[in-house]
């Protein structure tokens, strides 16, 4: 077993003392942060970022296609580059695109051809498509490979009761529902009792005590940033809160569900539009709230696979292959749709039915880890992966 510095600190009892003595050692430090957002359920990339310039798009999606930007009436796609357009429900992120800080990678995702939600999420989060034998997640392996002397328990966090697969592994990561509830409280708990619990769960209480010192209660988002009133919106708000608390956050994870639109997904309006609005408004709020801190932050979004190109019999779409990814932040060369467009003609489709994949999600993630996070070597994060050439997103 490799003894990490953290293990050493823990066993020597020094760790907690160091954190607690100087909870704000991170204040003012320029440190890169990556925020990963997972759209669980397989988001329809063809409705998120509409290929209105591909003439086949409208013929295979009669009811659910998003009208092209120049069509008349109704809510239409928002033109990005004359070929692609944003779903109108994503209008809140268009200004970020226009400012050059939102890049889109289309026809991207995991190269494995499974159409199982579970397997595909597992592959994307383990960072090892096609290999089920890897127990830890890609973000955890990034932390493992880049141990730092001044790491705090809040170096990697997820908002939610359960640790997401991306963060599972031997490196410490905090997962919690709500910042405000993170501690033993009320109901007759005494400090004596808390100390006894702290003996049982050392890691957890290191985090509890550090957070208590930082005291990030009473949070008011900056610049009127308006987060959606949903678990996803509140997760992003709390990530912003932790970023601003300067307690050593480097990797954050949140997820958002509702993308499995087998039935009645709608067009410019409807079920999918509502989810996209939540998704986009959350991103826009986070971007606004973090403001000039975004110069050191990159947000990346992903989903396990896209949806079939043709709509099904119930006004929805069945499981497909490639989807799209958003990459957003100060260092990002945005205002552009990246990736090679594989086309929607019948002979261009993957297995005759799905959007073909032209960018492996690991190419995107590896580039962010190397150029943004300063990772020296991503071969441990994405084992057996040979980068297919950088997209130059940064």
């Amino acid at each position: 077993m490799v003894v990490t510095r953290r293990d050493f600190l823990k066993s020597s009892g020094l760790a907690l003392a160091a954190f607690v003595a100087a909870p704000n050692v991170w204040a003012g430090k320029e440190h890169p942060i990556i925020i990963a957002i997972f759209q669980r359920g397989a988001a329809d990339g063809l409705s998120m970022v509409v290929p209105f310039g591909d003439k086949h798009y409208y013929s295979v999606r009669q009811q659910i296609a998003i009208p092209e930007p120049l069509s008349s009436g109704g809510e239409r796609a928002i033109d990005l580059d004359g070929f692609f357009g944003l779903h109108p429900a994503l209008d809140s992120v268009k200004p970020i695109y226009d400012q050059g800080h939102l890049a889109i990678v289309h026809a991207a995702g995991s190269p494995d051809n499974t159409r199982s939600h579970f397997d595909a999420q597992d592959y994307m989060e383990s960072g090892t498509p096609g290999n089920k034998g890897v127990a830890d997640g890609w973000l955890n392996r990034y932390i493992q490979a880049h141990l730092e002397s001044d790491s705090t328990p809040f170096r990697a966090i997820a908002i939610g009761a359960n640790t997401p697969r991306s963060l599972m592994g031997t490196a410490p990561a905090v997962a919690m529902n709500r910042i405000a509830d993170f501690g033993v409280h009320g109901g007759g708990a005494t400090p004596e009792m808390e100390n006894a619990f702290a003996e049982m769960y050392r890691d957890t209480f290191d985090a509890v005590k550090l957070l208590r010192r930082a005291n990030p209660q009473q949070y008011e988002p900056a610049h009127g940033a308006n987060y959606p009133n949903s678990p996803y919106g509140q997760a992003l708000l709390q990530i912003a809160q932790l970023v601003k608390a300067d307690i050593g956050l480097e990797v954050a994870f949140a997820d958002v569900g509702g993308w499995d639109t087998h039935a009645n997904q709608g067009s410019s309006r409807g079920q999918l539009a509502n989810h996209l609005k939540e998704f986009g408004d959350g991103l826009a709020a986070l971007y606004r709230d973090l403001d000039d801190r975004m110069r050191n932050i990159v947000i990346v979004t992903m989903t396990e696979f896209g949806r079939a190109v043709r709509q099904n019999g119930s006004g929805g779409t069945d499981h497909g292959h490639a989807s799209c990814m958003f990459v957003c932040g100060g260092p990002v060369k945005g205002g552009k749709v990246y990736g090679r467009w594989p086309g929607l003609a019948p002979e261009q489709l993957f297995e005759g039915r799905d959007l073909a994949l032209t960018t492996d999600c690991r190419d995107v993630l590896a580039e962010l880890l190397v150029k943004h996070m300063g990772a020296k070597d991503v071969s441990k994060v994405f084992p057996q992966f040979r980068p297919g050439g950088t997209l130059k997103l940064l």
Partner: protein
Amino acid sequence: MQDAITHLLNRIGFGPRPDDIERVQEAGIQKYLDQQLHPERIHDAVAEARLASIPSLTMRTPQLLESYPAVQKLARQFRIRQGDENKRDVRRQVLAYYEENGLNLPQRLLQELESQKIVRAVHSERQLQEVMTDFWFNHFNVFWSKNADRWLTTAYEMNAIRPNVLGKFKDLLMATAKSPAMLFYLDNFLSSSLKGINENYARELMELHTLGVDGGYTQKDVQEVARAFTGWSIDGPQRNGEFMFRPRIHDDGEKIVLGHRINAGGIKDGEMVLEILARHPGTAHFISTKLVRRFVSDNPPEALVKRVADVFRKTDGDIREMMRTIVTSPEFNSAEAQGAKTKTPFEFAVSSIRVLDGSTDGSRQLAQAIARMGQPLYQCQPPTGFPDRADHWMSNGAVVERLNFAVALSANRIPGTTVRIDDSMKSIALKLGSPEFQKR
């Protein structure tokens, strides 16, 4: 001997009550196991009395739709414009109508489901039946919050799951396939030969319910199975909510599923698919693996999985016999197996109440505490159900919530739940919160 009994009660039940170990010791482990394998023979008056006050459990779906109507439905009845039903005065008027007519909001159905699940797990003598109900509901998961499933999930648990939890696997499979809750949750009620198929149920049927993701089916099989199930529908998800086969939208053409030719026609097409899947060796292996994972270890010993799968094949998928094989196996009774499983939040909460000889009405607050620990009952959105692995449940946030629950319970501060405190509150809270008590 005591350890063996504790282990048994932790696995085929939700943990021992204070006098349980002695009781089992007197009766003998073998006899206790035989009793638990035949829950219909166990007298269960205490739990039944506690359930009598939960009205929805015995209602049929049309009655649930009447008695727990959606606010929107009443709003339409009053000709309130769409969108206006959330305005304060309109809402007050609608809620007054609920009150005057003895109606309840649909949310109440969730509370009653949660409540019966907790009450039975804490109080029922039929402990194995409750464990199996928890297991099979999670295996054939549906998501209560998905629209019509708010009215369909009650009948799903009471009529499709509960009567079959120790019976034949194929009966359970058939009951879930024909249940409106599943047909709605996985969209099969929309699949139509006229408008086009919907693959959702067909795929999950093979991936999650029977063969497993590596069970050897192809995308073509998914499409063929979906064709076989066209017409398996619901007589108005929010009107009657009962199963209905619609011949008009059924695809009567021939299908090839896993190499089998299917052209029985009508509802028989889907039934034949279920027969094929229920008999498939891949299903025997997949179901056995999941059972062994639940009852023995996160890493199911392959030799035991094979023996249980053999029993599945020889007994036409008899769950009772599979369970007998598991519980009497050397693997189950080995030292490594004891305390090897991490309790889910539900198991943790229920076993805590039981070990303190407590009683509960399964209140909303208790269900909310279980949700905060990471397991919102009946509200697992993906069709996979909750994962059955330790690393999923023990995040730092979940640990903190478990400790808060331990403190609140030992201070008797959870409404509707009372436990017996015959030691200092501190030592009880520390015992419930300890890493050892998180294991079963």
